[in-house]
Every structure is written in C-alpha cells, then in structure tokens.
C-alpha cells in the first residue's frame, strides 16, 4: 500500500532536530520499549498474529523473537477470544503477556474475555490474583480500511471498571507508557493509531516510565481548551497553528490515558479558558468525547462560558472508498471552524 505509507509520512510534521537529542520513529520507540521490557523481566512475553513475521507488527516487534526466543515472542492462532483468555490465565499465574493486534476491530472478538474476565478477576477474587497484561492495537485508517478495519473502540471500553486505557501521541510516550503498562498489575490496553507510526520524536535511551492517568499540556493557550489523545492531538495541533494565525489561542491537553483520566489537568485548563472542545479518533457519540464533556458540565460548570463541543467521527460506519472517506474523517480545518464558532459566541 504505497499510497497509504506516503500519506502516513506526510503527517509527520515538526521534524525534530537530531542535534537536540536522539530521534526515533514511533515504531522504533515501541520496539525499544518491548526489548527493554523483555530484558528487564523474564515474566514478560509478547504474542500476537505475526509478531515474528517479516512485517513484525508494523516493525514494532522486529528482531525480538531472534533475541528472546520462541517461548517469549510468538505468533498465535487466529483465535482472539481464546488467546485473550490464555493471556489472562498466564497473567494470573505470574507472566506479563503483551498481546498485540493489528487492529482494535479484532479485540471485539475478545470482549468476553477482556471485559467479563480480565477486567474483573482481581476484583472478583478479592485481590487474590492479579492480571498484569497489556493488549495493544493500532487503529486503522485509509486505503480502504473500511467499516471492519478502522474501528476506534476506546469509547466502548472506557466505562468498563478495571481496565486502564492508554492512547499515546508521541514516540516518547509510546515507549514510556508501554514500559509502564507492562509494569502495571492491572489489565491495560494501548490504542495506537496507524498514522502515528512513522512519526519521529525525541526518545531517551534506556528505561523510563510515563505514569498512567497523567495527561500533559501540549500547548498553552488562553481562549479555549482542546482535550484529546493519540492522533486527535495531531489534528488539534495543526488546527492550533491555523487558529493562532487568526489570533485564537488554544490550549491543548493530551490525555495520554483515557482511563483513568487526569481531571486536575482538565480542570485547571477550563478554569483558565472557560471553553472546552473534545476531540477523538472514535465515534463522537457515546464515547471519549461524551465522557470528557460530561465531566466538564458535572464538575466545572461554573467555569464554562459556553457550550462544550466535540469533534469525532459521525454516527456512520467507515466507508471504504477514498472519496467518501474524505468526508468522513474530521480535519484540522473542521476543528478550526468549530473553535471559531465557539469563540464567536
């Protein structure tokens, strides 16, 4: 899919200067995180369809089987529900599985094991067992991914007690959150975005952790707060530049973790700006946008100067064709328009 790749490349902006630090691509950063985790702790195993093949899960698992052997890094049958249960059982017995999927769509096959088992084991048995596992998947988009290969299901999962859900947006966070997730004793899901995979960024050598449940302010601004995560932050960032040119100064909060949520960071920002726009890569209805927006009107109503808005996917499945896709996914310009509309009032 050459076109897809070139599109992914075109979204890599703000190229970091290698003189200022070590630059890695998002995928290299993930690969390094997995290598460090495997070295660090013998309990860590990595599995998934094709993790040992030449494509190596977008490159993120490249070389790992050669280095750590087939018992630690291995391919699996096409049995998502079964393997989710296998990971859960292995985790309850002391391993730390990292279970990788090409697409979140495939996790839907494993919802029973993920939601009704992995997320609840520790609670149900009064803390006697723990389920330290990581489920990883990359949200698809473009090149005909279509309705069955592009679903961003974070919104479906964020209400499920017992799960942690991470959505990094930079190579730095991709590594630090992966290492933290593997170390965490609860089941943790990492949703990447296919379009971030080629992004470059500064990534320190060795092991470092990014705490779960802690967001980060990517851009300070006075007029309006944009909250989101993952690829949505890229859009927000592009929009912020266009808006700045028009004299609108937005603040961008990158949640990084959508469960648990960094309320303090959002609160501080809304207190300052009084305006909130939530952006997400998933369906706008009933998901991340709705939850973050609800928090604002529930907890910080008195700071709000106007309506809270959201930019996510319309209430429509993803069309496969390119022409329709252009109307489906929100753009930086869409964000600009909404922000201007919000600030006008």
């Amino acid at each position: 899919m050459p076109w897809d790749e070139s599109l992914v490349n075109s979204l890599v902006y703000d190229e970091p200067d290698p003189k200022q630090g070590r630059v890695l691509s998002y995928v290299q950063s993930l690969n390094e995180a997995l290598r460090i985790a495997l070295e660090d702790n013998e309990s860590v195993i990595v599995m998934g369809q094709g993790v040992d093949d030449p494509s190596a899960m977008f490159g993120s698992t490249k070389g790992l089987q050669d280095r750590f052997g087939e018992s630690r890094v291995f391919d699996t049958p096409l049995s998502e529900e079964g393997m989710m249960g296998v990971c859960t059982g292995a985790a309850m017995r002391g391993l730390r599985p990292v279970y990788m999927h090409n697409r979140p769509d495939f996790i839907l096959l494993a919802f029973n094991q993920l939601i009704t088992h992995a997320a609840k084991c520790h609670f149900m048995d009064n803390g006697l067992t723990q389920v330290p596992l990581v489920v990883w998947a990359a949200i698809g988009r473009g090149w005909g991914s279509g309705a069955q290969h592009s679903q961003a299901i974070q919104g479906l999962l964020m209400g499920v007690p017992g799960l942690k859900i991470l959505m990094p947006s930079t190579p730095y966070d991709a590594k630090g959150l992966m290492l933290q997730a593997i170390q965490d004793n609860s089941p943790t899901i990492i949703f990447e975005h296919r379009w971030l995979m080629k992004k470059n960024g500064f990534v320190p050598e060795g092991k470092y952790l990014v705490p779960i449940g802690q967001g980060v302010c990517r851009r300070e601004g006075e007029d309006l707060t944009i909250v989101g995560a993952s690829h949505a932050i890229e859009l927000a960032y592009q929009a912020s530049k266009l808006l700045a040119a028009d004299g609108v100064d937005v603040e961008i909060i990158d949640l990084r973790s959508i469960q648990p949520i960094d309320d303090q960071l959002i609160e501080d920002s809304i207190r300052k700006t009084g305006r909130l726009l939530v952006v997400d890569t998933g369906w706008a209805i009933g998901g991340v946008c709705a939850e973050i927006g609800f928090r604002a009107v529930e907890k910080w109503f008195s700071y709000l100067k106007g309506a809270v808005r959201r930019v996510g996917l319309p209430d429509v499945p993803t069309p496969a064709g390119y022409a329709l896709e252009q109307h489906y996914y929100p753009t930086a310009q869409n964000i600009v328009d909404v922000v201007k509309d919000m600030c006008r009032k």
Partner: protein
Amino acid sequence: MVQYPYEGQGFKDWSGALEKYSDSFLIDLFYKMLRIRLIEEEIENRYFDDLMKTPIHLVIGQEATAVGACAALSTSDLLYSGHRTHGAYLGKGGDLKKMLSEMHCKANGCAGSRGGSMHLIDPDVGMAWSSAIVGGAIPIATGAALASQYKSDQNVTMVFFGDGGTEEGVCSESLNFASLKQLPIIFFCENNFYSVQSPLRTRQSQRDIFRWAEGHGINSSVVDGTNVLEVYEATKSAVEKIRDGGGPHFIEAKVYRFRAHGGAGDDSQTGYREVEEREMWERHCPVESYYSFLDQNNLGIKSQRPELQKQIEQEIRDCFEHALKSPEPKKADLFKYVYAD
C-alpha cells in the same frame, strides 16, 4: 422416554483393580464423595432459609468426577472450573469454612463475598479460578498451563466444564492452542446431557464430544463418570503422560445431575426430562454404587460408614455455624481491588 439412559457397566469387572490400591486410598475416595454429597444436601436443605443469597449449582450425582479426577492431582496442580464449582472446589481440597462463608456473602468468604458460589477459589490448594460464563474458564486454564510450561514448574492444570462448554467456540480455540504448544493441561468435560433444561439433541450435532476433541489433535477418551475409579485411572494416566512431557488430554465423563440445573430440588417434573431418567441414573449413584462395590469386596466400609458420616455431619454443622456468625463486608470494601496495586 428416557433420552439419555445410563449405558455404563458400573463396577462390573473392577474387582481386579482393587489390588492396585491401598484400603485407605479406596476408602478415602468414598469419604470424599460422601462428604461432598452431605455438604450439598445440607446446602440444599438450608437454601430455603434465604440466607445463602447466591445461585447454587449442586453436584449431587456428579461427585465421582470431582473426587476421582482430583485424586490424581497433587496440591500444587491447578484446577479451574465453570459455574458448577462446588465439587471442584471441595475435590481439590478447598476450605469448607471459606466456601460456606462465601455462600453466605460474608467478608471471610473465599472471595470476600465478591465472587459468590460460582467463583470459588482457594489458591492454597490449587483451586485457581472459576468463571460463571460458560466456557470462560477454558482459555484461562490454558493460559495457566502455558505459564507452567514457561516456568517449568511441573504443575498439571485441569479444567472442568460441561457438555455445553464444548459448544462455545473458545473451547475449540483452546484445544487447538493447547495441542499446538503441547501444554500440560487436562480438559475435563462433565457431560450430563443438559445445559440448564436444554437437552444435548437441541444443541449439538450427532457427535461424540471426545471424538470432536480428538479432531484438534488431542489425546482424548471417554469414561463412565459414575465410576470414581475409572475417572481416577483415566486422569491419573493423563497426569502421568503429561508429567513425562506429553501434551494435553481431553476426558469426557458421562454423568448425571440429580437436581435442577440451579437451586434446590429436582425439576424433572417440569417436563424437560423424564423423572424415570433421573431415577435410572440414581440407581447408579456414584456414592452408593461405589459403597456397594467396596462392601462387596470386603473393604469393611459398612462398619466405618456411620462414623465417617457422623464426622462429616459435625464438620458441616461447625462450618455453617462459622459462616453464619462471620462478619459482613463493609461499604469501603466495595471499592477495593478494582485495580491491582
């Protein structure tokens, strides 16, 4: 019409096998089955008091599978189960006090009252986990076996599930994975011909469950689940092969539950199965048929039984009393263990 008649041979031709075992071992099997039976009957009796606010899935009639299979395991071996947990938990040596406290929703229940009767767990004796979702424990047990293989800890993992469990796709997935990786696991299917009130014929094609399992490349066999020695020997042989590095095994045991799917009492009169059918199987009751067998073979069981029974009844009374006077959990407990530290 009796849809699912008992077709086994009972203990016919089993006298020869007696020489292999010590009297105490043979009597212990009886003791364990009797104990489960009496515990279940007492749970059933007391269920009407509404003090056990939990669903129950009695194993009355299915004692030989739990006891026979668990007798082939050591304490550190792991056991997983579906919703019908009582036999597995007790067979594996689970603490009766903790079990009854759990069923009375008390703080000192084996899962602090958070799991309920379908989630009996006792890590001290290898009763590892259970799921109330049909088939749910099967891949989890498979994962535990993967961990054992990975750690080379020599444990055998066993998982109990019903005939219904084999209808869930995840069972097929787990069998394939276990066979692929040659995992140290025994898939133990208690085929009692029904799922709730649905007979096998409305749910499964004309297939032998163990043959279906075999198609996954797994060593598979079928046993008379009313015969505790046959269950024991089949499991023992599987355990030995597995400890010698052999791959997974699948055992189908034909059994019958004498009570309703859930709750107290039988429900055959509602019409989904014939009362005759139950009565036929009751004539091959695993506890009493083994008792007669031991008796016929002069194991002196007749003289021992009253004492054993008394002892068990006393234990049961004590444990119920313990459960009843145990403390309830507090509101603050609710918010514990959502995430692990």
